[in-house]
């Protein structure tokens, strides 16, 4: 499989504390890679580097065989979009929030595209509603719609269903599968929920203290973990 992202010896520190220390990571084109691990493991920091929001202190990140970072041309950076744990929406209607990514790209006459995504995300009836009136689940669906309407090559998701109800979780997971299968979008999903990782991901990586402890196909990750800490984690026990 082709790698869309390749990371080698990547390190990132904040205020002198090493947060991320990834020796080697290849993210394959068209896969769903779940990154699991406890809080503070470096999962979100990894996503920020993959979204070109920051540069590593050292090491090398390649995106589509080019050195990645905030210096990449805008049209390449725009191929990667993140759905954050807490969506920050504009003080505007659902429809205009979903249109945001298209507007910043200068897209005109995107009405049909927006309506299609709104329908897929179950937001058609709410399209004129103000973003501030939405529930947490609805707001997260708007954030996902805002991300997928621009048809990114890579969709990064940072705990997208944390604290959501089963209905919204199911809708979001269904959409994640759908865009991965129909549009071959590469998805990197950071989640605390190992069952969600099991349901969605082709491969799973366990992160601990900034390092990738184990990376394996989903089945192997659960059925024959190589590292003792992975075994502990999949058994639902705490690892620190």
């Amino acid at each position, binding site marked *: 499989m082709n790698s869309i992202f390749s990371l080698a010896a990547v390190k990132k520190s904040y205020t002198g504390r090493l947060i991320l220390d990834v020796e080697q990571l290849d993210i394959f084109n068209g896969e769903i890679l779940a990154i699991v691990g406890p809080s503070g493991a470096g999962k979100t920091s990894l996503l920020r580097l993959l979204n070109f*929001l920051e540069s590593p202190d050292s090491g090398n990140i390649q995106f589509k065989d080019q050195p990645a970072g905030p210096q990449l041309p805008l049209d390449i950076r725009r191929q990667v979009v993140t759905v954050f744990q807490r969506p920050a929406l504009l003080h505007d209607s659902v429809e205009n929030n979903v249109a*945001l990514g298209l507007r910043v790209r200068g897209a005109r006459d995107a009405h049909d595209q927006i309506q299609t995504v709104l329908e897929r995300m179950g937001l058609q009836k709410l399209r004129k509603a103000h973003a501030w009136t939405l529930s947490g689940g609805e707001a997260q669906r708007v954030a996902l719609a805002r991300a997928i309407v621009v048809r990114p090559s890579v969709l990064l998701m940072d705990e997208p269903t944390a604290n959501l109800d089963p209905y919204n979780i199911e809708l979001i997971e269904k959409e994640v599968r759908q865009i991965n299968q129909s549009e071959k979008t590469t998805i990197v999903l950071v989640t605390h929920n190992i069952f969600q990782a099991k349901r969605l991901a082709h491969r799973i990586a366990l992160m601990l203290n900034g390092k990738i402890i184990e990376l394996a196909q989903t089945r192997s990750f659960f059925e024959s973990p190589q590292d003792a800490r992975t075994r502990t984690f999949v058994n639902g026990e705490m690892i620190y």
Partner: protein
Amino acid sequence: MQIIWNGIIGGLKLLFTGDPYLWGILGVSGKVSGIALLISSILGIPLGAILGLLHFRGRRLTQALIYTGMGLPPVVVGLAVYLLLSRHGILGPLNWPWIPALFTVQAMIVAQVIIATPLVVGYTMAAVSAVNPDLRLQLQSIGATRLQISFYILREARQGVIVAIVGGLGSIISEVGSVMMVGGNIEGSTRVLTTAIMLETQEGNWDKAIGLGIVLLFLSFLINFSVTQLQGREN
């Protein structure tokens, strides 16, 4: 009490009979404060947005200077502009055509710009800083350029920006110190609402003073009512 009552009746009559003296003063006030507010907004909104958005060395010092500017006593501003524009001052002797002379509408505008600009900057900066900090990162993630991010954040802060403009207007439409010093309260030329109220009170023309006072109060109410209406519509 009778004097006050007669003053109110007389003032209302002047207002509604279209008294040329009163409406002339209103015109000068509108012109001076309107132009000053426009200049302050053009300068202050982008500067406030930059200070609210960017983190640079010296930002705190700049903010402290802006906050100090927000509390500038108008009479001190008047004194400074007087010293600047006076024939014996700093800029006056240069005789450059674009430097306004004292006791003109232009000199009054300069003074009011100095009073209103820090207020517009300060309120805009506070409004921009109060926008959800996650939004900037998410706009960046969705592919917005720096300019687009600034635009959307300023748009999110629009209520605060309106308050900044209104705050600036409130500070200049009702101030008397600087316009008296650099305008000179010349009838038909530099006399504005506040300086006229002062003069008419000193001369015992209660009807005119009260009429002008009512106009000033009504203007203030109208401005604040418009803002609350706008905010209500937004919410």
